């Protein structure tokens, strides 16, 4: 059985009018877990709370089986973090920024750092302010991976990046996962990034966890149904999580695939995308 690298239990955090309510989920070792949800659903708040950037109101957060509050130094030495905004001192060069971050880690590996710098064609004497968004993200990943982190936590790393760099990032994650015992927790609202790499998916909506399960099982459990509008009635509507009708027919997401197949004839059944499933569960407005 796979060990849990992160266990969050009944986590509560109020932030103005928004709040995380009794959040409970866990991440398994050796998995890439996608943390999905629309903008404002609570992804960043959750990540910042589990990292201690936002003090929690209640609940427990355990990394590698240990409470973060009591083992902060040890745990933070084992995790690498990439935040959406970077938070770098822009007037500094890459070398200067590294010299602030590196001494914090007991197992900082300069050779790993230089390998990533060369791989990403970054220049150590370049100012951070002059980096493009893509290069900045690569630098953030370089800093996050140069101390042999066991868990990589990323908040919206692909947001605002072109498909080429997003694809490159996915390759980096897969390379990182080749080593045994590594895990990734990766929040995004661009779910297509997760189609290729994610093992597990956690959906958050309005501060609450909607599901936490394996990507394959989730997509297996749901289906995208298309058919003629004549098949839609008061009874069949209830079989769908989300249903859209146009003059040309209907399209709906269901988690009752067997019942739909039994009750509706002449329909097209397709495998849904992660986005289809996510939108089916997200409350509108």
């Amino acid at each position, binding site marked *: 059985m796979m060990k849990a690298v992160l266990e969050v239990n009944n986590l509560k955090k109020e*932030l103005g009018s928004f709040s995380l309510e009794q959040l409970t989920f866990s991440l398994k070792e050796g998995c890439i877990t996608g943390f999905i949800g629309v903008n404002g659903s609570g992804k960043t708040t959750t990540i*910042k709370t589990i*990292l*201690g*950037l*936002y*003090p929690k109101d209640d609940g427990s957060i355990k990394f590698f089986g240990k409470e973060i509050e009591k083992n*902060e*130094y040890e745990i*933070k*030495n084992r995790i690498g*973090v990439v*935040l959406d*905004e970077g*938070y*770098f*001192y*822009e*007037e500094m060069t890459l070398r200067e920024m590294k010299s*602030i*971050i590196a001494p*914090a*880690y*007991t197992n900082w590996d300069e050779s790993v750092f230089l390998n990533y710098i060369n791989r990403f064609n970054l220049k150590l004497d370049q100012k951070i302010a002059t980096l493009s968004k893509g290069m900045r993200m690569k630098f953030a990943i370089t800093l996050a991976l140069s101390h042999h982190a066991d868990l990589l936590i990323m908040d919206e790393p692909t947001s605002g990046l072109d498909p080429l760099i997003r694809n490159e990032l996915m390759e980096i994650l897969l390379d990182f996962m080749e080593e045994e015992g590594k895990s990734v927790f990766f929040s995004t609202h661009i779910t297509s990034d997760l189609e290729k790499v994610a093992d597990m998916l956690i959906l958050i909506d309005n501060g609450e966890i909607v599901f936490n399960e394996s990507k394959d099982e989730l997509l297996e459990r749901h289906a995208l149904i298309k058919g003629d509008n004549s098949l839609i009635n008061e009874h069949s509507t209830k079989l769908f999580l989300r249903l859209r009708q146009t003059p040309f027919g209907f399209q709906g997401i269901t988690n009752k695939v067997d019942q739909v197949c039994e009750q509706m004839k002449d329909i097209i059944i397709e495998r849904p995308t992660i986005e289809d499933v996510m939108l089916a569960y997200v409350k509108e407005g």
Partner: protein
Amino acid sequence: MLIFAIVAPIFINSKLGLSNGSFISFLITVLFVEYILFNMISLQEDKYKGSALLCITPHTRNGVIKAKYVFILVIFIACFLLYNLAAAIGASYGLTRLSIYSVGVALLIISVFFSILIPVQTKFGYEKTKYIFFIMIFLTPFTLPTIIEWYQNNNIFNIDLPIPQSIKVWIPFVIAVLMASISMLISIRIFSKKNL
């Protein structure tokens, strides 16, 4: 800033023409250097959310706050060393070496100032605190010499305690460290509840 730390005491002392001008020159120089440097760092931190970046590494929240107080102390020591250099250069302008007691009093005043500034800034952020303290700091060259002179003339710091003189000179240092420690605990407490 290095040049300022050497030239400023000589300049201020020559302009003040007071009997205890050396001490006041040192104090004003230290206050300016500390405040400017501390604010430069706070500005960068506020602009780029530097403390959030530091707190995702093994650097702890407590460590971030402690570093601010250590920074003030290190700059004070650097200013003191540079002042001694200035005293050597500017001896002809009447700049003299400071006694341990004077250095202690200067440290105490710096300690009082930053013991208020750091917790206030931790609580309200850089922007709000900036306006209050900018006004205060620019008033100091006009008010501080008068206040200090008045205090010294009235022997406020020379309270007759039944302890040897050799120990008495260290009292300002002890009070300064005590104040800074209390302030640090308050700042740590405020910062531990802050959303970064």
